[in-house]
């Protein structure tokens, strides 16, 4: 696939679909959107298949370069980290379209166009190799999301759309000023070059803070997370899926791509700030989630808590932590998306998100109860599901940097189990107190088809995470090497024991089969 502009094609397909949707009637628009996203999904698979994950080749693959914009260029290219996030995007998009199939019935053409445009921009964010191109893609996402929340959202949609827009805009504009300064300092807009450029340490602090303002809002980190619950609650189901699934990951991607490699000294210097905010977020938002009466709000707060695990993993400055952060991002993208779909399923039937209006759904909706339970467990981080791998690695990583942070953040797992299981009990178990909820039909075929693939991937990611870790490993290793000179010393003082040669252990086993128990005790 040398020289074939597959990344541009992956952006052109949904763009063409978006334009076509604007002029099509409702039903045609649905099919155009579905086909466009499925084509993109196939292209995404082709991209992964052709991606060289051995780490021996170039870090940046599928590069394209066209200097058509004067001061900046149409420069694309991906590494393993971007590949995984693109894969997540193209996987979730057809599901979003499917989730909106019947739920959206006014102004369908514009809705589908907004979603497809969103897909173009998300792929653009993850592929951009030019600083300004990245910024344009990053910011432009506000427009379709503003419209999606504002037009097709719930009753308080206008407040939520304004809050979403202005909050994230204010976060990002300072980043733009920092970018301009960096480009003047380094004399290039190319991200790979900037990633290796050593900015003066005193400037790094300011630059880091400017980028942090943007990514922390996007992520979102406590205390700038308040836009998220509002946006989630008011957005239509598919909007929530894409918001939780991909848009939040732009913040984490920003940390990996910009903050850490470009400002390593400042990252190390300000890591305690990030840790502190993350610790508060894990505990505080988990407790807030515990008392929510609105399902979507509960999952929104749980997203903030999960994203805090991502930030501690990233600022652990070691491979385990960063790999874990990436896995949490991927896993959370799938699981939170699936949970929002679960909420959407019952919302479509009863048109309320109040937890108390449901109950005992496992009796009349057994298939739904099984899938919901599965995703609940995945969200809790049950071994065998995607989130376990990520959370374990991330916490292991941060333990090496700061055992106190690890201690506090691990409570998030316990609290996570509390609020998720409590939610599940109130919805699916207990008596069928509400007659209308008890009369709801089980999952339709369409809904099964939306959730089953996610469940399969969650399981795959939990059982054999190597498929997802392998493409990212060389890039994360490179990042770790870049961070190594600045990385803060850990407080855990881990001592690695000398590994015994395999043959010796066998020899012991053979020589003393009857004393194997006492042998282990040595």
């Amino acid at each position, binding site marked *: 696939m040398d020289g074939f502009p597959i990344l541009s094609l992956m952006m052109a397909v949904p763009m063409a679909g978006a334009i076509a949707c604007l002029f099509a009637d409702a039903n045609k628009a649905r099919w155009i959107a579905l086909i466009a996203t499925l084509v993109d999904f196939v292209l995404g698979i082709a991209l992964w298949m052709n991606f060289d994950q051995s780490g021996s080749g170039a870090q940046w693959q599928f590069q394209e370069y066209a200097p058509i914009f*004067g001061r900046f260029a149409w420069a694309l290219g991906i590494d393993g980290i971007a590949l995984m996030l693109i894969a997540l995007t193209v996987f979730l998009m057809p599901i979003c379209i499917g989730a909106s199939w019947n739920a959206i019935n006014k102004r369908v053409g514009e809705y589908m166009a907004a979603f497809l445009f969103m897909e173009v921009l998300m792929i653009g964010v993850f592929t951009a190799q030019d600083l300004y191109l990245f910024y344009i893609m990053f910011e432009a996402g506000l427009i379709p999301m503003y*419209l999606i929340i504002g037009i097709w959202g719930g009753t308080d949609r*206008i407040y939520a759309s*304004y809050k979403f827009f202005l909050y994230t805009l204010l976060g990002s504009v300072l980043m733009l000023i920092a970018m301009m*300064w960096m480009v003047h300092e380094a004399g290039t807009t190319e991200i790979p070059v900037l990633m290796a450029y050593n900015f003066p340490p005193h400037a790094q602090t300011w630059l880091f803070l400017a980028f942090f303002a943007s990514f922390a809002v996007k992520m979102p980190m406590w205390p700038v997370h308040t836009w998220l619950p509002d946006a989630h609650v008011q957005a239509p189901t598919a909007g929530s899926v894409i918001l939780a699934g991909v848009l939040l990951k732009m913040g984490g991607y920003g940390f990996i791509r910009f903050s850490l490699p470009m400002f390593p000294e400042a990252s190390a210097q300000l890591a305690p700030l990030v840790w502190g905010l993350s610790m508060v977020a894990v505990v505080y938002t988990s407790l807030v989630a515990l008392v929510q009466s609105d399902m979507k709000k509960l999952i929104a707060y749980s997203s903030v808590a999960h994203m805090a695990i991502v930030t501690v993993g990233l600022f652990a400055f070691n491979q385990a932590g960063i790999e874990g952060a990436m896995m949490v991002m991927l896993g959370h993208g799938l699981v939170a998306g699936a949970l929002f779909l679960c909420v959407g399923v019952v919302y479509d039937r009863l048109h309320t998100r109040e937890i108390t209006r449901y109950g005992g759904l496992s009796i009349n909706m057994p298939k739904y109860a099984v899938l919901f339970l599965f995703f609940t467990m995945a969200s809790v981080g049950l071994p065998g599901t995607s989130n376990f791998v990520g959370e374990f690695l991330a916490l292991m990583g941060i333990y090496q940097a700061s055992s106190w942070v690890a201690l506090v953040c691990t409570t998030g797992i316990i609290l996570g189990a509390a609020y998720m299981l409590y939610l599940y009990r109130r919805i699916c178990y207990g008596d069928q107190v509400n007659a209308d909820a008890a009369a709801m039909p089980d999952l339709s075929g369409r809904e099964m088809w939306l959730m089953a693939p996610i469940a399969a991937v969650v399981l795959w990611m939990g059982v054999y995470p190597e498929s997802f870790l392998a493409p990212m490993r060389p890039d994360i290793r490179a990042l770790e090497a870049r961070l190594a000179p600045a990385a803060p010393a850990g407080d855990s003082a881990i001592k690695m024991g000398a590994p015994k040669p395999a043959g010796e252990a066998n020899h012991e086993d053979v020589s003393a089969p009857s004393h194997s128990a006492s042998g282990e005790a040595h």
Partner: protein
Amino acid sequence: MIDSASLLAVLPELILTLGGLALLLVSAFAGDASARVVNWLAVLTLIAAGAALSCSLAHGPDAFDGLVRADAFSVFAKALIYTAAAAAILLAPRFFSVDSAPRPEYPVLILFATVGMGMMVSAGDMLTLYVGLEMNSLASYVLASFMRQDERSSEAGLKYFVLGSLASGILLYGISLLYGFTGSTAFDGIAIALGDGVSKGELFGLVFVLAGLAFKISAVPFHMWTPDVYEGAPTPVTTFFASAPKVAAIGLTVRVAIEALGPAGLDWQQIVIFVALASIIFGAVAAIGQTNIKRLMAYSSINNVGFALIGLAAGTPAGVAGTMSYMAIYVVMTIGGFACILQMRDADGKPVETIASLAGLSQSRKGLAAALAIFMFSMAGIPPLFGFWAKFLVFDAAVASGLTALAAFGIAASVIGAFYYLKIIKTMYFDEPVIAYEVKGGPVENVILTACAVVIVLGYLLNPVLDQASAAAAASLF
């Protein structure tokens, strides 16, 4: 001394003047019936003047012994001015034909105003500057009160006249002070005199000149006339005011600041920084409460002038190039935006001006709503629309010249501005329809609207051209 080279340098102005006079005669003899023909002939005159711009560069920049400059800067500004003026002429007939027959004086007045604006941007001497400014202003006063029967229009004209005269007086006083203390009215003469340190008297002159110019570009704190005049004037005239004279006044300010007052850069930089930030913040905050779309656009123009001035505050070639690119993009957004506003007509074809009447426009007039949304997002500076690039260029120049704090404040204040642009989009897209609009717009309006929208969406492809042109324009001042 008048020689052929000098005449060639002012060929565009000659064409416009002669064309304007000829059309005035035509309209005087043929009466209102000739309005249509005069309209198109006026546009042709503008096109001819635009074509003549390339000849005007032929013999070096100075003409009439330095009274007039024909350089890349003036060509850039004039190209914008002529385009905006042509759009203002083309958009007008439909509006004026609602109450009565369109009158041919309108295009003629615009032509005369354009001559004045041409002189403003190519002035090389304070007196050329003043004559050009007054020529433009006189025509503008008449245009503001063009609808004689309409009380608001007459009021706008009167207000504009009274306040405009005051500003002209301030400017003239500043010019006289500068002349008295430097001994010259020529830009280069003033620059030489300022080169050996700025005396108190010169400083006073500088402040008065800038105050007078700030009035013309409607920058805070000399903006008070703008909302009233924009609201009261007929909408095509408002379109014109918001576009062409803005470019001319900004161009003039840039030229005076760099060419004449360049050596006093540190003195005027503080003033420009203050005026820029004040305009950005005041324009944004005051716009939030507006209910009339024309008034809102007035505050929006104040806000935009603030951003454009950030480029000037940088005081570098890149900054000047940024300011001129800003004006180019601003003109496209403004004309597109007003082409949408002109289409705000109820079912009987009567113009409507309240923002609330836009409610639900996205359901009744999809295309119009999409176009207006594009212009509003663009004005708010949201990428990928071209309005973002305009802001980018001026802020980039400010950062490059070390004004990082100014850039950070300015861009943070732009978020306030985003709020009221979003309000219009919210009204169009999120609210339910209240009144029925006319089913479709006129063909000319639609063509202009579409052209502007295409530029705003695909503008980045024009970047290489725009960069080159604005850099050449800026280089000719330094």
